[in-house]
C-alpha cells in the first residue's frame, strides 16, 4: 500500500536525524526530575509523589511545556518538501492525497510518540532516584504511569500533532507553525480565566484543572490509592480534544492539494517587478568616497544595524501574531486587578504594572528566545551570509546591532503596554497615573531581566550552530537557574541576573532597594556583554562552522578596539563585584540556606534543655527609642523591671537577643550587679548570674541598650521593617527572656535530617506549663508601659498609650506615650509621614464610660476608605462595649504601613494595617463585601479577644483569639450591612476553608483543638460561630462571651487569678454550654469538637 511506503520512508528519514534522539533524550532526562520540578514548592499535603494524581498532572504539565517539540516534529512533515524545494519532484508522482497525508502523518506521529515516550520512561526511572525520601512514595505501580500516559498525554499529543501537521501542510510556512504553538499556549492561559469550573475543565488542553476537578472531593488516602478513572470531566475533556484533532485532520485533508505555488490564502501574491530593457552600455563613473574605520563610523554602523533589524522584525507577520495573542491574554486577565478578599482594588498604577508584568513576561521571554535565533540566523536563512561575511564588517558590531534591535522591539512593546495601562485607568475613572511607577515597573524591573537573558540567548545561538538546539539549551539554562534559586543558591554574585526588585509601595517607593539593585544589574550586564563579545568571536563566519575551527579563529578575530573594550569592562566588572561582595559578605553577614538550617538545628539542640528553667517575668517597660528613618537605624535604651513570680529564688536571668547581625545589645546591667555567662554567645543567648538571687515576689531592674545599624546592603531579603517612610516593628525585636521556640526548625523533613524529634505546633491542651503562658516563650503576664520615641521631623511616631506630649529637639520630633493601665507585653513602634483623621466615640448605652479618641493615620493619597474604617471603629465600639465589656483604653489608632507585608495586627489600642489590604480597595457596595469595614471590626475585636482576655499557649488558642474576633466582626457587619452581605462573606470563607483543606496533609483537627491551621480558625470558625448564633440566638452567645471575659480577663478575671493560668477552649465551651438549651447541646460538640467536614451552604 502506498501510504505504508510513505510511512516507512518517513520513519527511515527521521531515524537518521540526530534531533529525533536529542528530543527523546531531553524529554527523558527532564522527566526523571519531572515530578520534583512541576511540584517544587507546591504543598502536596499528604498526597504521595507517585500517586496517580501527581503522575497524571506531571505528565500533563510536561506535555504542555514541551508542546513546542510537537510543533517542531509535526510541522515540518509536509513543509520539509517545500523547504528543501523538492515539492516539484514529489507532487508530480501518481500518489493519492490520502496516501501522502496519511503516510506522512502517521510516520511523524510515530516519531512523536517515540520522542514523548521519553516522558514515560523518564518518570518511571525518576521514581527510583536515590535522592527521594521513601516516605513520599507509595508502592510502585507501573500501570499508573501507563494509564496516565495513554489517557492524559496521548490525546493531547494527538491534537497537537493534528494541529501542527495541518498548519504546516496548508501554510507551507514554518513561521505559521511556530505561531500556532504560541496560540496554543495562549489558549491554555485563557482557559485559566474561565470561571465556570466545568467548562474550564473540559477546555483545559493539558487537563490540569480537569484532574483537579475530578479529584476535588477525594480524600488524601483516595488520592494516593486510586487510579484516576477515565470518566466524567476527564472523559469529556479527552473526547473533546481528540475529536477536535480529528476535525482538524479532516479539514486539512480537504483543503490540501498538490500545488507547488503557495495558495493565495497564506501569501499575498508576489509583486513581479518589470525589468526595463536597456542595451546601451552604461558607462558610469563611480564617485569618490572614503572607507571609514573610526569609532564614529562604527557608531553609524551600529545605529544602522539596530534600526535595520528592528524594522526587520516589525515586518514579520509572526511577530504581530505573538503580540496580538499577548494583548488578548492581558486584556482578559486585567479584568480582576489586585483582588483581595474577592474585592478589586482601585486601579492604582502599581497594581496595573504588577498585573501586566505577570502576564506579559511570558510573551517577552518567547519573543526573546525566538527572535534571538531568528536574528542570528537572519543572513544564513536567506543565504546572504557569504556576502556579509566577506565585508570588513565587525562581527561584534553586527551582533550588538541585532541585540539592540531586539531590545528596541521590547521597549516599543513595553511602551504600548504602558499606554494600554493608562487607557485602562482612564476608562475606570482613575486619573492618578504615576508615570514613574510605570517606567520603573517596566524599564527597571523587566527590561534588565530581558536584556540579560537576551545576551545569553545571543551567546548560546552564536556558540551552537543550530537554531533549535540553541533554543532548547536556553530553555534548559533558564530552568536550571530557577532550580538553583530554589535550592538556595541565590547569592546575587552568582545567581544569574541577581534578584528581582523588591515590591513597590506607595508609602516607601522602592526605598533603599533601588541602588543595590541597579548596581547588581550593572554587574550582570557587564558579564552579559562579555558573553556577547565572546559570542561574536565564536560566530560562524564564512563557511567554517566546525566548533574547533571557530575556537581556533578567536585569536585572529580579536581586534584591538575590542580588546580594549573587553579590558575596560573586565576592570569595571571586578570593581562592581568587589564592592557588592564587600557589602553583602563583609559589611553584612551572608548565610546560605543550609547554614541557616544548621544554625537553627544547633540552637534547638544546644538550648532546648533550658526552655523551662524558671525565669522572672517582665512587669514594666520604659524605653527611649531614637529612630533614624533615612539611615534606617535605631537605638533603644531603657529598662525592664523583672519580677519573680515563682515559688523559689531565681539565680540566673537568661536573655535572648534578636538573632540578627544588624542588632547589637550592649550595656546590659542588673540592679545589684550580675556576671554574664557567654558560653552560648553563638546563639546570642547570655546567662546573667545575679550577684544576689532574686527572691519570690521581688523585682529587679534590667537596663540595656539595643542598636540597629544598617551597613551597606545585603542580598535579597534585606530588612523591610526599618525603612525611610513606614517603619513598623514590634517588641519581639527587643531582648526577650529565655529560650525562644521561633528559632526551631519547622519543616518535618528538615528536622528528620538533623535527628530532631517531631515538633507539634501547639502544646497539648492539658500541658501544665504552657497553660501558664499566653504566647510562646511568654515572658510576661502584663506590663506597665511608657515610651519616648524620637523620629524625623516630618514623621509621626506611634506606640500604645496616651500621648502625653510631643516636642521638637535637635531637629527631630519626639513623642511620649504612656499606658494608664497594664497591658500585654506586645507593642508596636510605627513611624511615617501621615495624614490623620480624628474623631471621638462616646458610648450610647453606658453613661459612665469614658470617651475614646479615634485616630486613623494614613498615607496622604490613600484617602479612599478612611470613612469606612472610621464608621467601622464606631460601630465596633458600640457593639462590643454594649455586648461584651467596656473598652479598656482611651484611644484606638489605625496606622497604615507599607505593603511589604499584607496583614493587619492588633496591639493594645493600636492597629497597624497594611497598605495593601484596606486602604486602596475599590469597594463596590453592591458587588462586594466592605472588607475595609470588616477587617477594622475584626482587629478591634482583638482588643477584647487577645488583649482583655488572653488564651493559653495550647491547642485551641486561636479559637479564642481569632474565631471569636471573626464572630464579633460578623455581628458588626450584620448590624451595618444586610444579612445578604454576611452570607456573601460566609460563602467566601467556605471557599477558603475548602482550599485550605485540600492543602492540609495531616488530619483536620477540631476547632477546639486547632493548632496553626488558619483555614480552620478563620474560615471554618467564622461559619461555625455564625451557625451557633443562628441556632441559640445572638444574645445567648453574647452573654456567654460577656461572662467569659469577666472571669478570664488578664487584669482581674476571677477564674484567671484563682487558677493562675490562662483560658482554654475547654473553658470557653463551658460558657457556651451554659447558655445553650438542653436539646441543642449537641450543637456545641458538633461545631467545635467534632472533626466532621463542614458542609457547604452555597
Amino acid at each position, binding site marked *: 500500500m502506498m501510504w505504508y511506503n510513505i510511512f516507512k520512508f518517513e520513519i527511515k528519514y527521521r531515524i537518521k536525524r540526530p534531533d529525533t534522539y536529542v528530543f527523546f533524550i531531553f524529554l527523558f532526562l527532564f522527566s526523571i526530575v519531572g515530578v520534583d520540578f512541576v511540584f517544587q514548592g507546591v504543598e502536596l499535603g499528604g498526597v504521595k509523589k507517585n500517586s496517580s494524581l501527581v503522575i497524571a498532572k506531571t505528565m500533563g504539565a510536561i506535555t504542555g511545556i514541551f508542546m513546542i517539540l510537537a510543533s517542531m516534529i509535526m510541522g515540518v512533515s509536509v513543509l520539509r518538501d517545500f523547504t528543501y524545494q523538492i515539492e516539484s519532484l514529489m507532487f508530480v508522482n501518481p500518489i493519492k492525497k490520502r496516501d501522502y497525508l496519511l503516510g506522512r502523518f502517521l510516520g511523524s506521529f510515530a516519531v512523536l510518540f517515540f520522542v514523548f515516550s521519553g516522558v514515560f520512561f523518564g518518570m518511571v526511572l525518576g521514581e527510583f532516584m536515590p535522592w527521594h525520601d521513601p516516605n513520599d512514595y507509595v508502592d510502585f505501580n507501573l500501570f499508573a504511569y501507563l494509564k496516565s500516559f495513554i489517557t492524559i498525554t496521548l490525546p493531547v499529543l494527538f491534537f497537537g500533532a493534528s494541529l501542527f501537521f495541518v498548519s504546516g501542510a496548508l501554510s507551507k510556512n514554518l513561521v505559521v507553525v511556530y505561531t500556532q504553538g504560541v496560540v496554543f499556549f495562549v489558549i491554555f492561559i485563557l482557559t485559566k480565566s474561565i470561571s465556570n469550573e466545568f467548562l474550564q475543565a473540559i477546555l483545559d488542553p493539558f487537563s490540569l484543572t480537569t484532574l483537579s476537578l475530578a479529584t476535588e472531593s477525594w480524600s488524601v488516602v483516595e488520592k494516593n490509592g486510586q487510579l484516576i478513572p477515565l470518566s466524567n470531566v476527564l472523559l469529556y475533556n479527552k473526547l473533546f480534544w481528540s475529536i477536535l484533532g480529528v476535525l482538524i485532520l479532516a479539514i486539512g485533508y480537504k483543503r490540501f492539494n498538490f500545488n507547488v505555488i503557495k495558495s493565495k490564502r497564506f501569501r499575498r501574491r*508576489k509583486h513581479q517587478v518589470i*525589468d*526595463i530593457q536597456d*542595451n546601451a552600455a552604461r558607462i558610469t563613473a563611480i*564617485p569618490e568616497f572614503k572607507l571609514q574605520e573610526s569609532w564614529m563610523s562604527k557608531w553609524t554602523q551600529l545605529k544602522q544595524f539596530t534600526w535595520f533589524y528592528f524594522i526587520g522584525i516589525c515586518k514579520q507577520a509572526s511577530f504581530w501574531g505573538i503580540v496580538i495573542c499577548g494583548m488578548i491574554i492581558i486584556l482578559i486577565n486585567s479584568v480582576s486587578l489586585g483582588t483581595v478578599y474577592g474585592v478589586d482594588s482601585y486601579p492604582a498604577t502599581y497594581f496595573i504594572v504588577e498585573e501586566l508584568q505577570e502576564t506579559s513576561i511570558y510573551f517577552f521571554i518567547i519573543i526573546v528566545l525566538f527572535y534571538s535565533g531568528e536574528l542570528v540566523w537572519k543572513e544564513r536563512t536567506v543565504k546572504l551570509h557569504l556576502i556579509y561575511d566577506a565585508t570588513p*564588517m565587525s562581527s561584534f558590531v553586527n551582533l550588538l546591532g541585532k541585540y539592540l534591535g531586539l531590545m528596541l522591539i521590547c521597549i516599543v512593546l513595553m511602551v504600548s503596554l504602558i499606554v494600554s495601562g493608562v487607557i485602562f485607568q482612564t476608562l475606570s475613572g482613575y486619573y492618578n497615573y504615576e508615570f514613574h511607577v510605570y517606567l520603573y515597573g517596566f524599564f527597571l524591573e523587566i527590561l534588565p531581566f530581558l536584556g540579560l537573558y537576551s545576551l545569553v540567548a545571543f551567546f548560546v545561538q552564536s556558540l551552537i550552530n543550530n537554531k533549535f538546539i540553541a533554543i532548547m539549551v536556553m530553555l534548559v539554562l533558564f530552568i536550571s537557574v530557577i532550580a538553583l534559586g530554589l535550592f538556595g543558591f541565590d547569592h546575587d554574585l552568582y545567581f544569574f541576573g541577581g534578584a528581582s526588585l523588591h515590591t513597590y509601595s506607595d508609602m516607601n517607593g522602592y526605598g533603599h532597594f533601588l541602588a543595590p539593585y541597579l548596581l547588581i544589574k550593572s554587574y550582570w550586564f557587564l558579564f552579559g556583554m562579555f558573553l556577547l563579545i565572546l559570542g561574536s568571536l565564536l560566530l560562524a563566519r564564512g563557511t567554517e562552522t566546525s566548533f574547533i575551527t571557530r575556537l581556533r579563529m578567536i585569536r585572529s578575530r580579536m581586534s584591538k578596539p575590542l580588546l580594549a573594550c573587553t579590558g575596560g569592562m573586565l576592570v569595571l566588572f571586578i570593581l562592581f563585584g568587589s564592592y557588592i561582595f564587600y557589602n553583602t559578605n563583609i559589611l553584612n553577614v551572608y548565610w546560605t540556606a543550609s547554614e541557616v538550617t544548621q544554625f537553627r538545628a544547633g540552637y534547638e539542640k544546644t538550648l532546648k534543655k533550658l526552655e523551662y528553667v524558671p525565669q522572672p517575668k517582665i512587669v514594666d517597660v520604659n524605653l527611649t527609642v531614637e529612630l533614624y528613618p533615612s539611615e534606617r537605624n535605631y537605638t533603644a535604651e531603657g529598662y525592664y523591671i523583672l519580677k519573680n513570680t515563682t515559688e523559689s529564688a531565681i539565680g540566673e536571668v537568661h536573655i535572648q537577643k534578636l538573632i540578627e547581625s544588624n542588632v547589637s545589645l550592649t550595656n546590659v546591667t542588673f540592679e545589684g550587679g550580675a556576671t554574664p555567662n557567654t558560653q552560648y554567645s553563638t546563639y546570642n543567648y547570655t546567662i546573667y548570674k545575679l550577684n544576689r538571687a532574686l527572691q519570690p515576689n521581688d523585682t529587679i531592674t534590667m537596663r540595656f541598650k539595643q542598636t540597629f545599624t544598617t551597613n551597606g546592603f545585603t542580598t535579597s531579603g534585606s530588612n523591610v521593617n526599618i525603612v525611610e517612610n513606614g517603619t513598623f516593628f514590634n517588641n519581639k525585636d527587643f531582648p526577650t527572656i529565655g529560650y525562644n521556640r521561633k528559632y526551631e526548625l519547622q519543616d518535618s523533613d528538615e528536622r528528620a535530617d538533623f535527628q530532631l524529634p517531631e515538633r507539634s505546633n501547639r502544646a497539648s491542651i492539658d500541658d501544665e506549663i504552657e497553660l501558664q503562658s499566653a504566647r510562646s516563650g511568654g515572658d510576661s503576664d502584663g506590663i506597665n508601659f511608657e515610651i519616648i520615641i524620637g523620629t524625623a521631623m516630618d514623621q509621626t511616631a506611634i506606640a500604645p498609650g496616651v500621648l502625653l506630649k510631643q516636642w521638637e529637639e535637635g531637629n527631630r520630633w519626639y513623642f511620649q506615650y504612656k499606658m494608664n493601665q497594664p497591658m500585654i507585653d506586645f507593642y508596636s513602634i510605627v513611624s511615617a509621614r501621615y495624614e490623620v483623621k480624628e474623631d471621638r466615640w462616646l458610648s450610647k448605652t453606658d453613661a459612665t464610660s469614658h470617651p475614646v479618641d479615634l485616630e486613623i493615620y494614613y498615607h496622604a493619597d490613600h484617602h479612599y476608605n478612611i470613612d469606612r474604617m472610621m464608621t467601622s471603629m464606631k460601630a465596633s465600639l458600640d457593639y462590643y462595649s454594649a455586648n461584651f465589656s467596656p473598652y479598656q483604653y482611651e484611644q484606638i489608632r489605625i496606622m497604615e504601613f507599607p505593603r511589604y507585608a499584607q496583614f493587619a495586627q492588633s496591639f493594645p489600642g493600636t492597629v497597624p494595617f497594611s497598605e495593601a489590604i484596606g486602604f486602596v480597595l475599590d469597594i463596590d457596595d453592591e458587588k462586594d463585601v466592605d472588607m475595609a469595614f470588616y477587617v477594622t471590626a475584626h482587629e478591634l475585636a482583638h482588643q477584647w479577644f487577645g488583649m482583655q482576655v488572653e488564651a493559653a499557649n495550647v491547642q485551641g488558642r486561636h479559637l479564642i483569639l481569632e474565631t471569636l474576633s471573626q464572630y464579633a466582626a460578623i455581628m458588626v457587619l450584620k448590624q451595618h450591612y444586610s444579612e445578604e452581605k454576611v452570607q456573601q462573606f460566609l460563602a467566601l470563607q467556605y471557599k477558603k476553608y475548602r482550599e485550605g483543606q485540600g492543602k492540609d496533609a495531616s488530619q483536620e483537627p477540631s476547632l477546639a483543638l486547632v493548632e496553626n491551621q488558619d483555614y480552620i480558625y478563620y474560615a471554618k470558625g467564622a461559619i461555625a460561630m455564625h451557625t451557633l448564633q443562628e441556632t441559640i440566638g445572638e444574645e445567648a452567645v453574647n452573654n456567654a462571651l460577656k461572662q467569659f471575659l469577666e472571669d478570664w480577663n488578664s487584669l482581674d478575671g476571677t477564674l484567671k487569678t484563682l487558677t493562675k493560668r490562662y483560658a482554654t477552649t475547654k473553658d470557653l465551651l463551658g460558657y457556651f454550654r451554659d447558655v445553650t438549651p438542653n436539646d441543642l447541646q449537641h450543637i456545641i460538640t458538633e461545631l467545635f469538637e467534632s472533626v466532621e467536614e463542614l458542609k457547604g451552604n452555597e
Partner: protein
Amino acid sequence: MELIIDNLSKTYSNGVKALQNISLEIPKGMFGLLGPNGAGKSTLMRTIATLQEADQGAVLFGELDVLKQKNEVRKMLGYLPQQFGLYPKISAEVLLNHFAILKGITNKSERKDVVSALLHKTNLYDVRRQNLGGYSGGMKQRFGIAQALLNNPKLLIVDEPTAGLDPVERNRFYNILSELGENTIVILSTHIVEDVKELCTSMAIINEGKVLLKGNPLKIIEDLEGKVYQKTIEKPQLESYKKEYQVISERLFLGKPIIHILSDVNPGNGFSLVNADLEDVYFSQIFGNSTNLKSAI
C-alpha cells in the same frame, strides 16, 4: 598588485581533496578559472575571499597574507558568490545602502552618491524602490554585482556569475565587468568556455583540485593550432572511433555526433582541419591525455 597562490591545499572532513597544491600567479585584469562542476573552483574562490581556511599553503595579495589578515583584505574585496538569496521584503536601494555601510562607507552623502551610481550602472535605478522579492534572476544577479562593486574593490571575485542567465543578461553582465578599472584583479570562475574566451587575459584550467593548465588563452590555443580535426559520424561508430583516435570532444549537430580529434598529422578518413578553439583545449585537458601541450605564459 598581484595575487599569488602558493601550494594551496584543502581536504574536507569527508575526505574529499578539494584543492591539491594549487599554485597560481594572477595579475591585474580578468582571470578566468575554468573547470567542471566539483573541480574545486568555488573552494578556491571562497578561500581567496577570506571565507574558508586552507590546510596548507598561502595566498598573498600584494603584501597581505590573505589567510591571516582577513579583515585587511576585506576592505579591498568584492565577492559575488555562486548562490545567494536576498531579503524579499526590502527594496534594492535600502539593501544596497545597508551593504555600503557594512563596507565602511559611513559618510551619508558619499554613500548616497555611490549607491545611486551603482544602481544606474546595473540598470536597476528605475526599479530601486521595488522589493527584491519581485526581482527576476537576472536582476538579482545585477544587484549582486552592484554590492560587490560598492567599495571599488581591488580584488573582485565572481563565482559562476552567468549560470542561469539568458544571453542578453550575460552580455550585460560582462559589459559591467569590462568597465572595471585596470587596477583591479578580477577572478571569474565558470564552466562556460565562451566566457573566458571573451573576457579573460589569463586563465587556468582546474580539475579535481589540481591546476591542469595555466596561461594566456590565445597562446594556449596557438599551441593546438593545426592539430585539431573534425568529422561528422554516425552514432554507432562512436566507440570504435574513440578507440582508434584521440577524441577530445563530441558534440551533436542536427542529431549526429561531430567529433574533434587531436592529431599531429592529417588523419585523412574524412577528417577536416579546423581552427583550434578554447573548448578543444578545455576538453582535451579534462578528458584527453594530451602530451603535446605545455604551459605557456
